[in-house]
């Protein structure tokens, strides 16, 4: 509550928690934006910019923290698709509402060192759930390419998968997002340089023309995933794979996401984890050094 007798201001001020992935958008000079989609738990805003991220998810505090999200402290505003907005100079402005970040979170928290042997053991517990693209040849090509390190297969499969499937976040994109985050973060954690190298290639391929091949929201999420940014549900599964925390409950929470999103992401994580294992320097566990 606010105790005070201050005169009413033209703007309603609100606060929220923001992912650092959208900090460049908020810190930049003000740009026009519009409401791309609106639903009870929030809305997606598309900012007029050539660069990624370009879509911000405004979500109620209980919603899944997408890597491009700003969580609202109060009730989400009632919005309609096409409403004008602006983003920049430290705030998101929607009609009379002016929204500022009162805390920041890191959507790509480092995993720390991970022992490949422990990863191998934990990865055995990865369950696929029911991904939408089970049996899809492009996914199988992606998996075999990642396991064997055949770059051409991986990139061919990735090109086929971008934008594949219905909805705001097509299943093909979710699989790729899960895969890229896993290769980058688990690769770094286990010292599997080749996995990170593969992630770099995938990132370049997938983000090159994502904006013309999939939905604007999904293009932003692919961009985030290319940098290793993901929702906490994905991060929790990766953390569990490195032996920090139980895997089973983390997986359960991941599978609950979206319609098939959680299972699609899990499928990508599974492909990524097996790939990382195949690239791991055998039996080595680097001792932690501080540079």
């Amino acid at each position: 509550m606010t105790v005070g007798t201050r005169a009413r201001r033209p703007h309603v001020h609100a606060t929220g928690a923001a992912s650092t992935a959208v900090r460049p958008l908020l810190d930049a000079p003000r740009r026009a934006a519009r409401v791309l989609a609106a639903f009870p738990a929030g809305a997606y805003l598309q900012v007029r910019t050539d660069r990624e991220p370009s879509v911000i998810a405004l979500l109620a505090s209980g919603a899944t923290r997408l890597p491009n999200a700003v969580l609202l402290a109060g009730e989400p505003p009632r919005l309609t698709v096409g409403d004008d907005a602006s983003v920049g100079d430290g705030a998101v402005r929607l009609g009379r509402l002016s929204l500022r970040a009162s805390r920041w979170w890191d959507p790509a928290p480092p995993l720390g060192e991970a022992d490949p042997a422990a990863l191998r053991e934990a990865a055995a517990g990865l369950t696929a759930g029911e991904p939408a693209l089970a049996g899809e040849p492009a996914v199988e090509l992606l998996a075999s390419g990642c396991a064997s390190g055949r770059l051409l297969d991986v990139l061919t499969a990735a090109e086929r998968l971008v934008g594949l499937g219905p909805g705001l976040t097509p299943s093909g994109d979710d699989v790729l997002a899960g895969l890229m985050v896993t290769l980058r973060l688990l690769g770094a954690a286990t010292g599997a340089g080749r996995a990170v190298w593969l992630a770099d290639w995938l990132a370049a391929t997938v983000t090159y023309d994502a904006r013309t091949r999939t939905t604007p929201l999904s293009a932003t999420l692919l961009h985030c995933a290319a940098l290793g940014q993901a929702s906490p549900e994905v991060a929790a599964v990766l953390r569990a794979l490195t032996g920090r925390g139980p895997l089973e409950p983390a997986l359960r929470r991941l599978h609950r996401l979206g319609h098939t999103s959680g299972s699609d992401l899990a499928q990508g994580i599974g492909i990524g984890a097996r790939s990382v294992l195949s690239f791991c320097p055998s039996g080595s566990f680097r001792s932690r050094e501080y540079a």
Partner: protein
Amino acid sequence: MTLLSGPPHVVTAGVDLLREALDAQAVPTTPVDWRPPLPGTAGALARVLADPRRRAANERAVHRLTSSRPLLVGVRRASELLDLPQPMFLHAGPPLDWERASGPMRGALIGAMLLEGYALAEEDARARLESGAVRLEPCHHHRTVGPMAGVVSPSMWMFEVRDDVHEGVAYCSLNEGLGRVLRYGAYGPEVLDRLGWMDRVLGPVLSAAVELAGPIDLRALAAQALQMGDELHNRNRAATSLLLRELAPYVVNAAPGHAAEVLRFVGGNDHFFLNAAMAAAKVSADAARDVPGSSLVVAMARNGTDFGVQVSGLGDRWFTGPAGVPDGLYLGAYGPADANPDIGDSTITETAGLGGFAMAAAPAIVRFVGGEVADAVAATRSMYEITLAEHPAYQIPALGFRGTPVGIDVTLVARTGLLPVVNTGIAGRVAGTGQVGAGLVSPPVEAFTSALLALAESALDPFDQ
């Protein structure tokens, strides 16, 4: 989730501004509606909570309370079960003498004098009681509980309840029905006639029937009755029916000649099960006694003058305050002016997670005690704030089969200022009147605060190794 793995969900207690700052950050919080503890208890609370024995002691005590399995194993005369040298009576509540006894307590004692033939007329009985010639001791000191005045004399028939798990035993007299009855302080000819019939017919027949039936699981009966709208203190209709269903064939077998009148008497008395429930609660609560360092309440009882509590870690000591006058509905032309202060051992049901604590299970009695269904649910919910556990067997369908709140912790009473919710009958103030109503009563705060101060005195020093 470990501390550093992600943004936490925060429980907040204290300055609201700090919770608001978390709200502004879109951080989920669960705020405590915190208020200062009862006046004068802060220091004692700290000492008791610092007692290194407390946590394990309370876990052990409440586990014993909730894991007991009370079985009705017999119906026998008090003189067989109890050491009652003549002339001596048991009474409800903490210790009491004639001088401080209230009207209904005096009436019940006079009735017992007449019943046992220790006096031939009321005046004679009164004079002998006044002279101190009759010993008076609390039921609770003899593994016994008695409703209202709770007077137990040698010839009375008692429920004998055993706890298989902790090997305890407890007793309670048989219920006489409502209206003009001894336990409410009436001692007129019809009262004594009924007691005479119970002595000659009801007691022996039930005794034989229970023997034929074998042990009856009272915990299972109570658990079923809770799901049928009883709370086992002010409403025992379902439990009485369930007991009757168990016993009826054996009553017929044991005494075909008396079966009809016995079954009619039990079936016509909705409170018949109460006394069995009380003995069951008593044997469970006694299992939790004498755990050093425990702040669990093991008895709450009233003698019509004082309300007393006993605490597991403090042995047989009573902590008392003046008994309050219940707030409720009155029968006929009676009103609050006719009411006696709170009386009876039946608060043993609340002590064991029944009665007022299980109000949400018994929406039907809510109007009787002057409230709405939402009040009953809220009453039960508020008792979770002062209890240590949820009962594993006694469940409330309306709360999603959540266990009833059980195991009152003196420290939680002092911290929240929430007093146990007690359902009770109301006795007439004047000896000989009988029941005048029923309602809710609040225990006196000082019974709990003085128990807390005593716990603080006996607390171990956490740094004394």
